[in-house]
Structures are given as structure tokens and as C-alpha cells.
């Protein structure tokens, strides 16, 4: 069974979203959205999974302006959210602002968006950054848009639970604190992960391989989820279809 790397990522995201009732994803985040759609499809008939895609008209059930996402998180009505980062360090600090010395930075990124709030209030924040390189995963971020851990007296029902990259899946333990390598995606190995990661992390000597989907899940993904996704992310869905056609020349999608 041929499984594309992005399908491994999407299925991993769906796994990380087990038991959520309400998940929000950013405007330009097709992969988290696909993972959430797969979760919703898998859970159909057992639990209702709500998916909010920021900036989308189709997948927006908010009616109180752009503050409502944050309000609903503050109310405890948002279970999971995805956060990227120009830099992420071993304490799960996230930097969305830039490289160099603030404020006159040598490289400036857009800004922190809602990270400094949602990272505190959403119980299951999944750090998702495909580029797995030492310039992204640094020992110490240049600017803390949102801290990975807080003092015990800080109100913080939320925080990071996992970091997913194109090479591997990490879990985050806020008590220790630090990342632990949970699994390496097919085609990658531990040494490659060590070389590409600028911070220390826990790992087994022989870490497990990130599992792929079973046939039923893959079929659900390539039929229903891909169709749903193409409404909101047509370019991403079209590329996926092209890659599938190339990887599986007979045209069968499952």
C-alpha cells in the first residue's frame, strides 16, 4: 500500500485529535484542516466534532466577529488548536515575530497573532511545522511570542502536547519539561532527526516508526476528506490528487 508522506502527517494529526469536540485551524493550514476533517469522519455517529477554519466562510460557525474564537477558548469550548512558528525551542517557546534583536530585527515575520493567548487557554495545542531544520528548531528562540511552560501559579489550562514535523512526532512534557521523540516518519531515522534539531530531546535508542493508516482510514481520507478539503483548499487538494496519480499509476486511490 503506497502512502504519501502528507497522508502520514494527516493521519497522525487525526490521531492527536482523538476525543476532541471542537478544533480550530488557521486560514492557510490545509494539513491540520485535513486531519480535523479525517477525525470528524472517523468519529461520525459517535461524537460530533466541530471544525472552525479561521477566515473561511464555509467552515465558520462564529457570528460574533474575530473575537469569538478567543472568547470560546476562554470559555473552555475549544479543545485543540495548531500553532506553527518561525522558531521553536526545546522549552516549546514559539517565535512568530522574527530573527535578531527585537524590535529592529534582521528578519521580521508577520507577528504573534493569537498565540500568546491560545497557547495558554487551549488544552491541546499541536505544534505543527513541516520544515524540520536547525534554523527552525533552535536552542532558544530570539523572541517568545508564547512561552511553552509557565510557573505553577500562572493560570494555564492549555499548552503544547505534541510537535509534528515532516520527519517526526514529538510529545511535550510540561512537568519535566521538554520534548520526547515519539516516532520517526517512514524514510527518516534518528540520526537525521538529531542533526536537524537544535534542541535536546528525549528518545529511545531505536525509536518507533510513525504508523500509517489502515486501509479503511486511507480510503476515507482519499475519498471523503479529499473531497471536503477541495472546497476550502482547492490548490492543495489538486496537488494531492496529482501526486496520488503519480504514486499509484493505475489510478486506484485505495
Amino acid at each position, binding site marked *: 500500500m503506497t502512502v504519501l508522506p502528507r497522508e502520514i502527517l494527516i493521519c497522525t494529526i487525526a490521531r492527536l485529535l482523538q476525543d476532541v469536540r471542537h478544533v480550530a485551524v488557521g*486560514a492557510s493550514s490545509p494539513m491540520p484542516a485535513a486531519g480535523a476533517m479525517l477525525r470528524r469522519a472517523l468519529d461520525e455517529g459517535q461524537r460530533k466534532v466541530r471544525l472552525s477554519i479561521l477566515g473561511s466562510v464555509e467552515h465558520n460557525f462564529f457570528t460574533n466577529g*474575530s*473575537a469569538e474564537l*478567543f472568547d470560546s477558548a476562554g470559555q473552555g469550548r475549544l479543545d485543540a488548536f495548531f500553532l506553527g512558528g518561525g522558531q521553536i525551542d526545546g522549552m516549546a517557546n514559539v517565535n512568530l515575530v522574527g530573527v535578531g534583536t527585537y524590535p529592529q530585527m534582521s528578519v521580521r515575520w*508577520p*507577528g504573534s497573532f*493569537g498565540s*500568546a*493567548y491560545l497557547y495558554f487557554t487551549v488544552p491541546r495545542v499541536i505544534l505543527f511545522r513541516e520544515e524540520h531544520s536547525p534554523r527552525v528548531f533552535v536552542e532558544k528562540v530570539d523572541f517568545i511570542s*508564547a512561552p511553552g511552560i509557565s510557573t505553577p501559579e500562572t493560570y494555564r489550562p492549555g499548552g503544547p502536547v505534541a510537535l509534528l514535523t515532516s520527519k517526526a512526532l514529538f510529545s511535550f512534557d510540561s512537568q519535566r519539561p521538554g520534548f520526547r521523540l515519539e516516532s520517526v516518519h517512514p524514510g527518516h531515522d534518528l540520526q537525521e532527526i538529531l542533526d536537524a534539531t537544535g534542541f535536546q530531546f528525549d528518545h529511545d535508542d531505536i525509536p518507533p516508526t510513525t504508523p500509517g493508516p489502515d486501509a479503511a482510514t486511507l480510503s476515507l481520507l482519499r475519498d471523503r476528506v479529499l473531497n471536503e478539503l477541495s472546497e476550502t483548499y482547492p490548490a492543495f487538494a489538486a496537488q494531492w490528487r496529482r501526486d496520488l496519480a503519480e504514486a499509484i499509476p493505475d489510478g486506484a486511490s485505495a
Partner: protein
Amino acid sequence: MSEDLRALVRRIQPGMTLALPVDYAGVSMAITGPLIRHGAGDLHLVCVPTGGLQVDQLIGAGLVRSVETSAVSLGEAGGAPRFNDAIKRGNIRVLDATCPAIHAGLMAAQKGVPFMPTRGLIGSDILSNRADWQVIQNPFATGDSIAVIPAIRPDIAIFHAPMADRDGNVWIGRRRELAAMAYAATQTLVTVERIVDHSLLADETTAAGTLPALYVEAIAKAPRGAWPYGLWGEYATDTDELIRYAAAARTAEGFAAYMEQEVRA
């Protein structure tokens, strides 16, 4: 340019604070050119809660002293080139924020109180760089610190909406951040796709999504006034144009040429 648009921008004085909405909520791109020709500079921009093309163009035109924002970008078209360049050169002051803190500041102004508390922020470099914010003890619990954000009271809020009626009521639909901006601001200037003859408040269905004229200082008609941004329920974002701008504005000269062409158009 219509006389109505000219009348709108004449209300803007050098040094004022302008509140501008997020990309998808209804940006009055139609006012950007007139605003730049009007030339009132030294502006402080408040992005509600993030900025994009309009903010980048006002910065590129040299009208901006400082920006309070949670982010500035061109979305799919990438980073905001004139914003990024101005930061590198130290030409503008950025007050980095996080979205709900900007909402909290506007809410404080809406409620007529000096501040609002907000969760999060503690331990971030956003907070440590905002001398104008405070951390206080929650008076209802022991050992619980919480950030408090002072009221944001813009002189002028500017946005684009689908329609207004003859009484000056404006239909904003579910984009209630536009109402929040208007409540907080001293004056609100609105461009609209069209003026309708029936009162938007006369019917409960349209009234539900209407910002009352009480908050609206002046309105100008500007069809496709959010372009190249989209307007919900009306037209989609012209991403190709955003990409064209992003490429042109990589340099100050490219930006100037792009804007020149826009002004002529």
C-alpha cells in the same frame, strides 16, 4: 475619486490614531489612495487585530509613525514588504500585541472603562516589551496574576461594508469587530458597495447585522471598495493582485511605481 471619498479623508488629521480591520472583515481599500494623496502623516495605526495590504501601503507611503498589531502580512501572498522593510530600517515603531489583547483594549473603550483584563501573555516577550500594559493581582483570588490592557480609543475607525441606508445605518453582518471598532472610536468612516433606500433598522432580520448611524460619522459609496481583498457574501479576494503587489513592493521604487499606476487607474 468621488467627492464623498475626498470628504471622508479630510477628517483625518496628522498624528491621529486609525483603527483598521483584518483582511477578511471589510478593508476599505478604496480609501487608501485618497488617504495617501490627502497626506496627513505621523499616523498611529491599530490593526483589529491584524493588518495587511492597506497597512503596508500606508507605511510605504511614509504616513505611519507606529503600528499596534498582532501581525501584518499579505496572507497567501506572503510577508508585507514595506512593513518588513520599515522595521529593518527602524522607520516605524511596532507595538506587538496578540489578537485578544487588541480586542480587550477596544472592549474597554466600548464599555467606558480604563482597562480590561486578559488571560495569557504572562512570560511572553510581547508583554515584556509593552510598558503600556500592566500585570495586576486578581482581586478575587490569591497569587493569581493577570495582564490588564488599557482602553484603545482610536480617533477614527475606517472600514468597508456591503451597504448603508439613507439614515446612515451600515450593514456589517456577523463581522462584529467592525461594530467594536466603531464603538471604541470617536469617529467612524465607512465605504460601502451600495446605498439602499429602505431602512436597515426597520426589519428585525437586517437590523440584527446593522451598525446604527449613531456611531457612523460619514459614508461614501465605493463599489468593489475592498478590492483586491474580498468582501463576504459579495466577491472573493483577488490573490493574483496581492501577489503582483507583493512582488512590486519588494523595493521602494517598485512600490512607488505600483502606487503611481494605481492612482492613475
